[in-house]
Each structure stands twice: as structure tokens, then as C-alpha cells.
């Protein structure tokens, strides 16, 4: 089981209470599709992903970005049992969506960058460490049910 310090718990709750899911989610997913273009392979039905501007303005990308953040909220609300909380989602990503779990880390890095830009200097090294630890647990849980 993952052990969280009080600082880490408070930091994660604080970050997620402050960010706007429908701003950060779309921005993080769009950034991921631009910075790691091979991730576009999972979004063939999303229409125009031809360049950064098209990706940024794509309504399906935006909607999905928000969906992802809402999904992350489930982990935020169940920090002591993220593995079980995400068991079904893990099966979904493996059996139905066929997403290479290495991609979760790429999205996590983009999320870190976007949250850093939002929070500015309040995104201290200690806050970054807590956030990255949280995302690492999420990434691990999402990859757990793959076989």
C-alpha cells in the first residue's frame, strides 16, 4: 500500500481543488498529442489532428481531456486505494482500448507541465514531488491489469 505524508495528501487535494478540469485536461491532452505525436494513434476517430492549432481547437480532444481529469479525481478521492479504484479502468485500457501503458507516463509528464504553468511559483519542488508521486501511483494502477 502507498504511504502518503500529510503534506502529500494536502497538496494533492489542494491542487485538484484549484485547477479547472476543463482547462487543464484539454491542455494536457493537446500537449501530449503535439509533443508525443505517436499518441495520436489512439484517436483516429477524432478528426483533424493535423497541427498544434487544430489539436488545440478540436472539440473531441477538449471533451476527452476533461473526461481524463474527472477520471483522475476518482484517485484523488480514494488515495488509499488507487489500485482497486482503477481496476476496471485498467482492464478497459488494456482489453478494449489497447493503449500501450508507456503512454500513461507521457500524459502524466504533460499534465505536470500544464499544472506547473497554472500554479507558477507555487508549484515548488516539494509540490512537484508530491504531484509526480501521485501520478506515478495512478500510472502504475492503470497498468496493473494488463496481461
Amino acid at each position: 500500500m502507498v504511504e502518503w505524508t500529510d503534506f502529500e495528501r494536502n497538496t494533492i487535494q489542494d491542487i485538484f481543488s484549484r485547477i479547472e478540469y476543463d482547462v487543464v485536461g484539454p491542455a494536457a491532452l493537446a500537449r501530449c498529442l503535439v509533443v508525443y505525436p505517436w499518441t495520436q494513434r489512439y484517436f483516429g476517430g477524432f478528426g483533424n489532428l493535423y497541427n498544434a492549432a487544430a489539436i488545440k481547437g478540436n472539440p473531441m480532444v477538449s471533451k476527452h481531456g476533461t473526461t481524463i481529469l474527472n477520471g483522475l479525481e476518482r484517485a484523488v478521492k480514494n488515495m488509499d486505494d488507487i489500485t482497486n479504484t482503477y481496476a476496471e479502468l485498467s482492464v478497459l485500457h488494456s482489453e478494449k482500448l489497447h493503449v500501450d501503458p508507456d503512454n500513461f507516463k507521457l500524459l502524466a509528464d504533460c499534465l505536470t507541465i500544464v499544472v506547473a504553468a497554472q500554479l507558477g511559483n507555487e508549484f515548488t519542488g516539494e509540490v512537484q514531488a508530491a504531484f509526480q508521486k501521485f501520478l506515478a501511483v495512478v500510472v502504475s494502477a492503470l497498468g496493473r491489469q494488463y496481461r
Partner: protein
Amino acid sequence: MTSLTAKDKQTVKAFWAKVSGKSEDIGAAAVARMLVVYPQTKTYFSHWQDQSPHSAAARKHGITVMMGVGDAVTKIDDLKEGLRELSELHAFTLRVDPGNFKILSHNILVVMAIMFPIDFTPDVHVSLDKFLAAVSLALAEKYR
């Protein structure tokens, strides 16, 4: 991984022109962040009296690193040759495990996002990420 396109080089040079004035602060912040978020990197600095992230030694090191990055921008057309001496230094003297180049690169990107949230667009991010990866590769060239 992939080599730098003409667009990448142009993007990196243009972004660097905008941010190089703050290169000392960027370097100091990136190294400080690295020492906090990835404490295993402190193992390379056991010779520092003060290993805290905002010590004078850490700041000085951040400045040194960023000067190297700035130099690499001017040698962007042939990083392997341009960074040959720095590679020899890292290979034979410093012997930093190359996995750490990725860690420091990540923290440089985080600092760019914090200090230049408007200019650090996804297009700039991808070119800078590729550039730092290319620099890291050139630095590891002489390792074995």
C-alpha cells in the same frame, strides 16, 4: 530518437533568444528542483558542504549547466562534434549515469513552463524536448 528538423532548430533558437537573459535563474531553479524531486541525484554532490537545493553550490552548478545548454544552442548543427569535450568530461571524469540527463531535462522543461507559461507552447515544448534529448545523446557519446 529523432533528429532535429530545420523547424526544431529555428524554434529552439527563437525561444532561447527570448529566455537566455534568465538562463542563470532557469539553471538554478532546474537543479534545485531536481535535487528535491529526485533525491537520488544528490549522490553526485556529496562533495558539497551544503547539499540543500538553494545553496550557493547548487545555484552555481545550475548556472554552469545552463551555460552549457546555451552553448549547445550555438552548436545545434553538429552537437556530437560541438559537445565532444563536454562529453569527454562527463564520460571520464564526472561519470554521471546518462539516465540523469533525462531527469534534468524534464526539470528544465518544468521551469520553462513556470517561468514562460505563454511562450512555452506545445510546439516549443516538443522542439525543446527533442533538443535536450539530442544534447543528452551527444553528452553520452564518449561513454563507451
